[in-house]
């Protein structure tokens, strides 16, 4: 298999925002450890789902990958090239190869730019097309994302569109550059329930058509199972388990993954739910617990978990887990 992206021990610590006054008096600098040492490989043509609860760092990781924010440490290798330190013009050229779709379609479109212009803008910026050729490409792309007839949408402003339609525009804007990698950050979580499936299928269809690789960020495990080939589960800025979709869902290894899986409501359950109960809530990422970050809530934690931090290791074929008690 061909590797498209490799993350090597990526960290992102955000300094805790303080007012000028507080900074004057603060003794030590505090950081939100949003992403704290993630290593991951993404294969060309696959869909990798990054799942976890809010605040686990999955969205930050998505933004790090497309270089919207700079990592505190670690390396990002894209197509065999180290892109961690790209700046200015080089970085802008990279944007043609990797794109992002955001969660909130109401906020991700410029309210004062017509739809056609929004989709055309990436091409203009990179000088890829102009005039009637540009218009043709935009029309075709609008059609591909299901905004038909495209003439009807070309000169319309975002406020006239529904959430589902706006997300289609955002998808069009991302694929018009024919990128190789697309990071989709919770693309359906703000869409009406009855329209989610259609957006998911649109994304699957486009993947086929343009030979895309997706990094699909979601908190919804059911959606992840539907769309992903591989799953990576994040907890407090770290990956605790990853592997092929089928293995992770049928045989979850990490106690956190088990808890997550058994907490999801299932409309027509095939088996009786055996819930894994967790104590407490996700700790503050400013001061994550020592040792295994999950130990204060873990039902099977032992002495070692308080002292040492488990590494991700291969528990079965291609299925990785960071837990001392999984054999």
């Amino acid at each position: 298999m061909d590797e498209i992206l490799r993350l090597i021990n990526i960290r992102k610590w955000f300094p805790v925002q303080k007012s000028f006054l507080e900074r004057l008096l603060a003794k030590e600098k505090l950081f939100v450890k949003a992403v704290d040492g993630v290593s991951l490989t993404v294969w060309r043509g696959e869909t990798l789902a990054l799942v976890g609860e809010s605040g686990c760092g999955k969205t930050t990781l998505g933004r790090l990958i497309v270089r919207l924010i700079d990592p505190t440490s670690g390396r990002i290798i894209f197509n065999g090239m180290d892109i961690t330190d790209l700046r200015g013009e080089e970085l802008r050229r990279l944007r043609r190869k990797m794109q992002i779709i955001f969660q909130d379609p109401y906020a991700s479109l410029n309210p004062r730019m017509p739809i056609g212009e929004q989709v055309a803008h990436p091409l203009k910026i990179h000088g890829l097309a102009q005039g009637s050729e540009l218009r043709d490409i935009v029309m075709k792309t609008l059609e591909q994302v299901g905004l038909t007839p495209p003439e009807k949408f070309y000169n319309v402003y975002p406020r006239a569109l529904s959430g589902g339609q706006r997300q289609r525009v955002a998808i069009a804007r991302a694929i018009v550059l024919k990128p190789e990698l697309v990071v989709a950050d919770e693309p359906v979580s703000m869409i009406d329930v009855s329209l989610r499936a259609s957006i998911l299928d649109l994304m699957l269809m486009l993947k086929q058509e343009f030979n895309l690789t997706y990094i699909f960020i979601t908190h919804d495990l059911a959606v992840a199972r539907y769309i992903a080939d591989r799953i990576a589960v994040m907890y407090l800025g770290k990956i605790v388990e990853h592997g092929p979709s089928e293995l992770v869902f049928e045989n979850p290894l990490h106690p956190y993954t088990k808890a997550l899986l058994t907490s999801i409501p299932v409309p027509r359950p095939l088996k009786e739910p055996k819930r894994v109960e967790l104590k407490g809530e996700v700790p503050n990422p400013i001061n994550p617990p020592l040792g295994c970050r999950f130990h204060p809530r873990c039902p099977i934690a032992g002495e070692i978990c308080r002292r040492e931090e488990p590494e991700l290791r291969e528990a079965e074929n291609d299925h990785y887990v960071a837990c001392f008690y999984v054999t």
Partner: protein
Amino acid sequence: MYTFRPILMKLVPKVKLSTLGWVGVGMVTFVVFLAIFAPLLTPYDPTRTVGPGFQPPCWEHPLGTNKIGQDMWSRIVYGARTIIIVVLLSTAISMLIGVPLGLISGYVGGLLDRILSMIMDAIYAFPSLILAIAMAAALGPGIINTAIAIAIVYVPTYFRMVRGQTLSIKEQLYVEAARAIGANHMTILVRYIFPNVISIITVVFTLSVADVVLTEAALSFFGLSVPAPTPDWGFDLKAGHPYLLSGYWWLITFPGLMIMILAVGFTFIGESVAEYFQAMEVRT
């Protein structure tokens, strides 16, 4: 890379006014009408003695005459010119300085933003009239000088609002999306931030114009605006004040009424515009 034409066309946003707003438009239009057609509306030179002093309103002098026998109606009509010119000039200067500075300060951030904000906040917190007085006194009288003195007082109003709006727009997802498609800073400022700042500029403009009118009136009331024979409402109001005890009510009633019509008119428009954009924001 792209044309500026469509942006320029969109500079004046479409606004739906309420009834109150239209009343305001009527009041302001009335004053502007007087200013434009002043020569056609007045039989006398506003700076000359054209009759006996202290004449109450009568056929020849519908608003009476002042101490030295100048026709009050003519002075009122020409006074509209003075105030409108000063208001337009000073507002244009405030905007030209305040808006770009606000945009850049908010977008660039860092030390530049810190320093600019601190200076602007200091000016803003200062009593506007006292600052205008200090500056007008330092600059000396005249239309341009008065406009500059007032303009500097209102630069922070534009700066603060534009900066605040820029800061919040900068955090918007669509600006991040613009970065993600590879837009450079200039493109982001011009195509993604500025168009979304226009509505707040419109609101600040309509709300602060009334303030500018009152400040001009106050400066001329203190004799710090245009020099003496030029017709000016605030000046006439001051000039008529000593004769209040004699009961010469027309000397003070009409200049003051005009100031109020213009200021209230602008406030009504401002309220209406602000309300419209608030409603728009809720909807999108």
